[in-house]
């Protein structure tokens, strides 16, 4: 009996220790109910980073350098009175990084697939981007096609109708947008979130699946939610 008590006490000590080691798990309450992970993919130079910048900063980033790696941006949005933190991974579009960036698709709840309406080649490559996306994400991952640079009407090479047809055939959401003017940028990101949220509400997305790309956070975390909280914080704490 005494032995058992001491084991239990040790366990408590361990738990206390773990809680102390991971202050985020207990102390910090969240500003949001969900985290959705997005990836932005597409050929080099189609404006992926600019779209992200426009969405997070509401500014156009002129002379945006090539992304050598994966940039990361966040924004808290509201859908149906729920606060959702979008965690957006902006990937390098260069062909040579294609293999490496594939590892970032995993666990994305939303994929924004971008082409440049003024460069047909970037549109022609969509099927290969789509194949990657379908192969590397969940069936429930929401794929949103964005035809960027809609402000450059005079040099357009891909018509809206053509892309719309492609999107419809493949069951993608679609908008033409401009990272420069900001037109439709907000809409594309928010529509994707609404669709993901709708999937959750309708049970099409399993929150418990490790790669759903969605984390649900109770608004008042407590010790009892320790186990639920452990995985999202895995990266930040040492346990």
């Amino acid at each position, binding site marked *: 009996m005494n032995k058992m008590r001491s084991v239990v006490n040790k366990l408590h000590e361990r738990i206390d220790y773990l809680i102390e080691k991971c202050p985020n798990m207990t102390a910090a309450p969240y*500003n949001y109910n969900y985290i959705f992970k997005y990836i932005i993919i597409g050929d080099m130079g189609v404006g992926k980073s600019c779209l992200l910048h426009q969405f997070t900063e509401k500014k156009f980033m002129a002379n945006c350098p090539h992304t*050598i790696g*994966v*940039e990361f941006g*966040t924004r*808290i949005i509201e859908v149906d009175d729920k606060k959702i933190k979008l965690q957006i991974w902006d990937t390098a579009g260069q062909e*040579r*990084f294609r293999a*490496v960036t594939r*590892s970032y698709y995993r666990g994305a709840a939303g994929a924004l697939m971008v082409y440049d309406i003024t460069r047909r080649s970037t549109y022609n490559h969509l099927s290969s981007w789509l194949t990657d996306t379908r192969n590397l994400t969940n069936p429930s991952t929401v794929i949103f096609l964005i035809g960027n640079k809609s402000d450059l009407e005079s040099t357009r090479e891909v018509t809206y109708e053509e892309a719309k047809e492609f999107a419809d055939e493949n069951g993608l959401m679609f908008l033409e947008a401009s990272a420069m003017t900001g037109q439709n940028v907000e809409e594309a990101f928010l529509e994707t979130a609404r669709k993901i949220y709708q999937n959750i509400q309708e049970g099409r997305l399993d929150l418990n699946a490790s790669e759903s790309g969605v984390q649900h956070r109770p608004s008042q975390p407590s010790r009892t939610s320790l186990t639920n909280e452990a995985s999202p914080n895995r990266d930040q704490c040492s346990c």
Partner: protein
Amino acid sequence: MPGSGTGTGNVPMAVKSTLDIVRQRFKEDEIVHYIFEAYQIQGQEYLDRLLALVSSESGGTYAIIAFSYLRTPLTTANELIINKVFALNESFQLRQDGKGSITTMQFDLSTAEDRPIKYYYYPLKSQEYEEFVAKVISCKNSMYKCDPEAVLNFSWLNDYRQIGEVKQELKKREAEYIVYKDIIIYCATWNVNNKPCCDSNSPLRSWLACSEKSPDIYAIGIQELDTPTKAMLNSTQMQATVEQWTQKMVESLYPGVEYEVLRSVRLVGIMLIVIVRKQLRQHILRCQLNSVARGVLNTLGNKGGVAISLQLHEGNICFVNSHLAAHMGYVDERNKDYNAIVEGMRFDDRRTISDHDHIFWLGDLNYRIQEPPGQQRPGPLTDAQTYELLLQYDQLGQEMRKGRCFDGYTEGEIKFRPTYKYDPGTDNYDSSEKQRAPAYCDRVLWKGTRIEQLAYDSIMEIRQSDHKPVYAIFRAKIKKRDEIKYKKVQEEVLKAVDKRENDNQPQITVETVSIDFGRVRFNEPSMQDFNVYNNCPLPVDFRFKEKDMHDICEKYLQVDPRQDSLMIDSARSIRIKLLVDVRTVGNLLKKIRTSDNFDILILHVENGRDIFITVTGDYQPSCFGLSMETMCRTNRPLSEYTQEQIKHLMRDESPEYQVTMPREFFLLIDYLHRQGSNLEGCFNAHDSRYSLGGHFNAVRDWLDTWSNEEFPGNVQTAAQALMLLLELPEQSLLEPFVEDLLASSSKSKAMDYIALLSAPKRNVFMHLCMFLREGILCQYYDLQQVALIFGRILLRGSSSSSRMDYNSRCIQFMRFFIDSDISDSALGNGHASGSGNIQAKSSTSATFSSSQSR
């Protein structure tokens, strides 16, 4: 002011500006008394903490708030993140730990709610620490000295506790979106003296519908609810009693308005019910209840209090109904009951009674009127004069003035007769033999801001109890959000939080994202260094990330360090070593064949972005590791090929070859063949071939340049090179028939498969076997040993290599071809056509090669 007057001339100016920044973090009526820089240790990490000693004027209490900060030095209050809040309440402790060392001093902060948290400080700060401790102690004492009994209000801390930074920020900017809404609150209390409610057939309108305007919220308290012993045990009957009363109350409310019962709570005979206007219901965001039992043994609950806490819009309202100890002389007991209710009442969210904006306390408080003995009433008095006189001796008023109970509460002017004790059914004071003195037992008090009392009266014409019912009407201005303004502020706050998060992402800069090794040669190590800098305002952790399931980099690369931390403004040199050797050449050649770089490393910044670092180089092709087919496609020494050209040849799959057998292979066999008896013991199972010394590079160059010079090594190095030529290609020589060959039970069967090999492979195999057979015939080496060594090289990579009889099968297979007995007999056994053909071919190639060689 921290540091002021202490004579420490070296207190940096930054401390002052930091204090100013910290001040911005708090509201106007909150005062920052001192800040102290400490740190916490988590694992290897030192985490800066700023401890602020703060007081609230409205709360009159002190607390220590621990911040972490996003950058040093601080530039705005937004960079302060609340880490921990310690109320300087009774349980608060600051404990100096004796375990501090010369370099780290430590202390603990704790309260009853929180386990002790360890903080450290630098000895340099000792003086400030002493000052900090002194201030904390004096602040704590100042609160408790003046009145040890006082209940301290720490509710202001709730704004800093357990809520996210968005909420904190929103709370801070409350003034920008809060408007006030008038709410009429109707409080009523009645000690019903255990009388059933059906005693009165008429509704209780005269008690509950006295307001001019329709009330928004009713809080109705009953004491001495009909609770005979029988009823106490029988919950159904009790339930019925409660329902009857509820029913009766609901039908007696202000007419023409739809009401809804929000909650009711009962402790034995003490019941509180909160009824709200129907349209208001949706704005009630929270409703909790609780009770504190007093009375017999302080537990029975015949006395005590019940309370309902609710949040209407942004306003927190609390209603308390209490029945305190009875009898003239029991003033102290009443005070004790009051304090016990205040201390014991905790709602589910740990909120106490005092953590509300508006508190209404009603009930049979039982304070009596204690006139001095022999008091003479002066002549005929008006009612008002009588009340004034009586109230001088009202125990509640007296105790409140002495600060013994209901601290901070207000009561409206009493302009009604004492509500106790009447002969039931009459307006006559107690005529029984006890002749109890009349008293103002039944009261309504309030505490909080923006409350105005509109009425306070008793109802004489309700006569069934020995108490008269009392009611009080209030107008309270409740905090409410202006939704449009709120949305706007919220949007701004969210944007600021997002911006801060994105701006404060850990960032590092790398000197270059492409590492070029330049000329890379087989068996020659090289290295490249590059720097990473931390130029962001936070310490940064970085590491190279594993790719998929593999290592962080290809086998021929080594990265050092694989992970590290970078302090602010510091740099770290990263070394990448590259070695293409026996173990890794296959990986590199495969990479060259399929990609335009040697590798892409992922440099991951914790909580930040990933940077791809491309590693390239110019590999000088060498025969080692190339397939027989690729070598047969060359028409000049490999040293004259570029990486790009060899990549092209490696990808070529056509059956067109420049030569029938790799010249490099032929040259080695040729050299070895000429050594005659020197060959003795040159093929042994010892894996010396895996560790190549620098001297081996001469052999490499001899082969890769088709050198006319003497072979630069000895028999052993030549044998080593020969085995490596056979072993290093990605595919073993006898693929794709390894499995079949291992299973072949006769030479003729094996020969059928050999015939199907690509020409270069087949030729190499046959030529090798002829050479080995000759050596065995001459007894330069042992048949069994050579059969095993070469069998394992030529048949490597098979899944059957794990089989028990793998070795013996390797030997058996090789013997078909190198054991002159078996070979001859097999040849004589009707396989002349197939094998003869091959024989012929390989001799041709040998001849051809000989004629071509130098």
